[in-house]
């Protein structure tokens, strides 16, 4: 009897000790460093910003939760070693992969950003751009920030492909930034995605001081001519023509631009309403969840907590600012060559940095501060959607040089 109790007590004790050793609390003390604790705090901060202040909540919330999951001890959801060296280690993948590793394949293979672009295309009205094609130029000028930051990042010691990924933050287009970074420098995916989406949420804070500094009161009060109506046929031909032209000129930009135009064609043709609604809502929402979670999961302590991240955050805001300035300055320059009645309000130039439709709204708000009867929103939507095409083109060019 005594020996039975003795053996039983040691068995129970061993079992409980093994169980305690397998819990996350034990892992917290055994394997987790200060870095993981700091990353969990960063995840909490991002969750707070997303929920309380509604900073791009759709993506920031999922990114923050992915960050939280990947930094919790022994969760085994994401393994950086499976993607080491910039490619998938298929030989050990199935034996070791966790849930987020499987989902991350969509980022790694460039699937999610393209699917998001299908949804973005279905939600975008290219009418203002078709009515005023000169808006493409403002969209191009706003990409200057990308290339100046590309050089700035190189000066700070980043490699050329890392510099390209950091520069693309200036395009203010999350899917494009994630697509290019996953191709060129996947090790920077976490910090770049967080920087891109944080700055996109901060567009109303970052842009107005630059816009006001570069324009006069008179320029900000310019009223623009009403845009011409755009026929349905033009709206249908536009996405087909752009997809074909971009594919012929710049094949590396085709995945992004092609998907964007596919979504737009679904919306404009009017015969596949079900598909259009699906890509705008269900597909988009599902992909956003997968993309946010997996991009957040790449933000491990080793990848995030270093001076490189600080450099990326600083360079990102510089890229954003330069892009804004580029668009405004080109609009001012274009005004030198047009007659009095056809002047462009330079405030719409800042909308060339993508960030649809936030940047266009900022142009509208700033314009109305000078002249409450001035409605710039539709005029600003032209450069805004041109910026989406422009940043995808810039990403394609960088990919063809650096990929």
């Amino acid at each position: 009897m005594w020996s039975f109790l003795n053996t039983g007590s040691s068995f129970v004790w061993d079992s409980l000790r093994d169980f305690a050793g397998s819990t996350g609390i034990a892992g917290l003390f055994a394997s987790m460093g200060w870095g993981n604790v700091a990353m969990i705090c960063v995840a909490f901060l991002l969750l707070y910003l997303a929920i309380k202040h509604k900073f791009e909540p759709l993506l920031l919330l999922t990114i923050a939760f992915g960050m939280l999951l990947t930094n919790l001890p022994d969760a085994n959801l994401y393994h950086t070693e499976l993607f080491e060296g910039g490619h998938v280690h298929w030989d050990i993948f199935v034996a070791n992969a966790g849930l987020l590793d499987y989902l991350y394949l969509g980022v790694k293979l460039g699937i999610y950003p393209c699917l998001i672009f299908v949804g973005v295309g279905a939600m975008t009205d290219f009418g203002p751009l078709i009515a005023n094609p000169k808006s493409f130029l403002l969209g191009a000028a706003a990409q200057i920030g990308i290339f100046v930051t590309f050089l700035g990042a190189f000066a700070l010691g980043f490699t050329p492909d890392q510099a390209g990924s950091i520069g693309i933050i200036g395009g203010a287009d999350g899917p494009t930034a994630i697509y290019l970074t996953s191709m060129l420098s996947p090790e920077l995916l976490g910090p770049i995605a967080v920087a891109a989406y944080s700055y996109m949420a901060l567009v109303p804070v970052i842009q107005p001081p630059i816009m006001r500094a570069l324009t006069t009161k008179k320029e900000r009060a310019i009223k623009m001519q009403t845009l011409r109506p755009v026929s349905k046929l033009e709206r249908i031909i536009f996405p087909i023509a752009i997809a074909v032209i971009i594919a012929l000129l710049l094949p590396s930009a085709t995945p992004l631009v092609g998907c964007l135009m596919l979504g737009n064609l679904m919306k404009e043709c009017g015969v596949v309403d079900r598909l259009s609604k699906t890509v705008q809502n269900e597909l988009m929402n599902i992909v956003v969840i997968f993309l946010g979670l997996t991009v957040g999961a790449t933000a491990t302590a080793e990848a995030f907590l270093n001076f490189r991240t600080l450099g990326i955050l600083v360079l990102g805001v510089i890229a954003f600012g330069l892009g804004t300035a580029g668009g405004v300055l080109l609009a001012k320059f274009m005004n030198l060559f047009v007659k009095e009645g056809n002047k462009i309000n330079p405030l719409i130039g800042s909308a060339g940095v993508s960030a649809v439709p936030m940047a266009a709204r900022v142009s509208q708000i700033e314009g109305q501060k000078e002249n409450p009867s001035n409605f710039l929103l539709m005029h600003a939507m032209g450069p805004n959607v041109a910026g989406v095409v422009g940043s995808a083109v810039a990403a394609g060019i960088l990919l063809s040089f650096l990929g």
Partner: protein
Amino acid sequence: MLSAITDWGWSEMLWTALISICLVFIVLVLLVLIMQGFGVVFSHRPSKTPVTEKQPLLHEEEIAAIATALKMFRSELHDRESEVLTIMSIKRSYSPWNSKIHGLTQMPDRK
């Protein structure tokens, strides 16, 4: 033949940045030209909808007269009700005053 990207120096970086921004502009300028071409074609297409004749511009006094007439016409309009009254439902909340059990004489229970 391009050197490996890892060996790039400032010269390669500057050229890449310069060529890239030029390419962005060239591609988008090309799109501007093509879209303007489309615009010209579509704005000259004969419209299927019947063309309405342009009305001559109205004189300011005529506009004022029309506006005054509209104002006077609208100021004389009144809200017209349907004049049909229908009791849709009656809500009878409980009260001892309308309770049947309190209204009837309680008969003694004889056994």
